[in-house]
């Protein structure tokens, strides 16, 4: 790994519990960040980031498996059984198989990552996730030469996921990343937030978090990971390819037919919250812009 990503937030932004749990991590990364800061050409937006409250993060969700309303997941996700849980890892890997959650977590470093989260619907949050880098998992299972993409699938269990009883989307929910995006140190497999186990409505027990992409790329309640050499089909792109591309990088300059992406509203500001400008790659331009060098981002949206 070239470097491990570090928050641009100070410990003042971290909850006491989170700080306590992650102090070692925090100190270990401090030196590396100073170096990276000098190299970074563009100044990163230094806004005063304050994480959303646990209540905000867990009461306003898009998780169509439980219904299309923002409060449906919080209302119905308690029905979901998350233990036992396993993930099938297949395709172009050296060690394919069905791994239990415990096997996957074995030896992984769970760290806190405070990330901006930007929904394509132009609302956003700041979320203190807990999780490990997807790269660590992929390295462990052994990615074969020639693999270029990683495909993900969410659980299909209509008896516990009432939204799946109607064909609002083509189940299972599918997402995908290019292999270099998947291996990027920012890309997280999250198992919790605020130091708590992942709430069901946020994608328990394990979900993806790709902070520079619109939220729907960060697939929840993952049961399958497939390494492949072809760009995998993704749910929202299958639903409406004009509106949702495979890449779906946060980009205030690329227009969306439904929502202006130039600005966003941070959830939690109440009735008189003002819009704030949306940042290129959701504020992670220094870290990820190189992945897309030479690509026309309005074509590969």
């Amino acid at each position, binding site marked *: 790994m070239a470097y491990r990503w570090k928050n641009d937030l100070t410990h003042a932004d971290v909850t006491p519990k989170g700080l306590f749990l992650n102090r070692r991590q925090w100190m270990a990364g401090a030196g590396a960040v100073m170096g990276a800061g000098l190299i970074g050409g563009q100044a990163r937006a230094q806004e005063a980031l304050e994480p959303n409250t646990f209540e905000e993060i867990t*009461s306003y969700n898009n998780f169509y498996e439980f219904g299309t309303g923002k409060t449906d997941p919080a209302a119905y996700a308690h029905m979901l059984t998350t233990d036992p849980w396993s993930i099938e890892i297949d395709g172009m890997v050296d060690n394919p198989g069905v791994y239990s959650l415990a096997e996957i977590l074995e030896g992984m470093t769970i760290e806190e990552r405070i990330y901006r989260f930007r929904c394509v619907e132009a609302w956003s949050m700041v979320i203190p996730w807990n999780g490990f880098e997807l790269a660590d998992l992929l390295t462990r299972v052994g990615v074969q030469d020639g693999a270029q993409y990683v495909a993900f699938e969410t659980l299909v269990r209509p008896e516990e996921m009432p939204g799946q009883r109607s064909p609002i989307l083509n189940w299972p929910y599918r997402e995908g990343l290019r292999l270099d995006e998947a291996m990027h140190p920012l890309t997280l497999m999250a198992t919790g937030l605020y130091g708590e186990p992942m709430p069901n409505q946020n994608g328990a027990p394990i979900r993806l978090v790709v902070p520079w992409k619109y939220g729907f790329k960060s697939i929840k309640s993952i049961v399958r990971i497939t390494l492949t050499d072809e760009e995998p089909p993704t749910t929202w792109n299958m639903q409406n390819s004009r509106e949702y591309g495979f890449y779906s990088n946060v980009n205030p300059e690329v227009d969306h037919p*439904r929502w202006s992406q130039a600005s966003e509203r941070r959830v939690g500001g109440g009735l008189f919250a003002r819009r704030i400008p949306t940042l290129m790659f959701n504020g992670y331009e220094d870290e990820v812009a190189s992945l897309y060098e030479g690509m026309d981002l309005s074509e590969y949206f």
Partner: protein
Amino acid sequence: MIDTLNQTLRRLPEWPLYFLGFLPAAWLLWLGVNGGLGVEPIKALEHELGVIALQFLIAALLVTPLRRYAGLNLLKFRRAFGLLGFGYVCLHLLTWLALDMSFLWGQIAEDLLERPYITIGMAAFLLLLPLALTSTKSAIRRMGLRWHKLHRLSYVAVVLGGLHFVMQEKVWSLQSLAYLAIAVAVVAMRALWLTRRVARS
């Protein structure tokens, strides 16, 4: 039975309907300020105001079919329904401009031009504007037959409103489709009556 009801209704004044009709707006605002609309109250308020606007507009267009098929005479209250619908459309629009878009005029203009569901919603508002302005008794008297012709714009407006509702959804939703279906039905009824009348003459 229906005659007694009609006679009672005729004795009721029109004005309390305006007062009652705006109570939901006041209630929503109160909820929004006090956290009762969830963690993203702007979207919730905007949505609810739009739905209520459609309900009143549809109610106004249900007055004639109700009289025709059920004998229920609500004609006295039709204007109040229409104006309440327009009032809620105004509140919905204002919520979008002020609270949702923070008066970012550049982005607002872009939305109006490039996002069809917003263009359609705005068109519905503009169609309702002359109707609201000609809703006084004197305007009705002065305009005569032209008033009736002008107010047929409400048929277009209510269907556009339903379409606006359906199109802003990311996936097909039963609620918005139901509103569009009802809007289309109340307008289709008029078209049917019109063709029958033409056929008879």
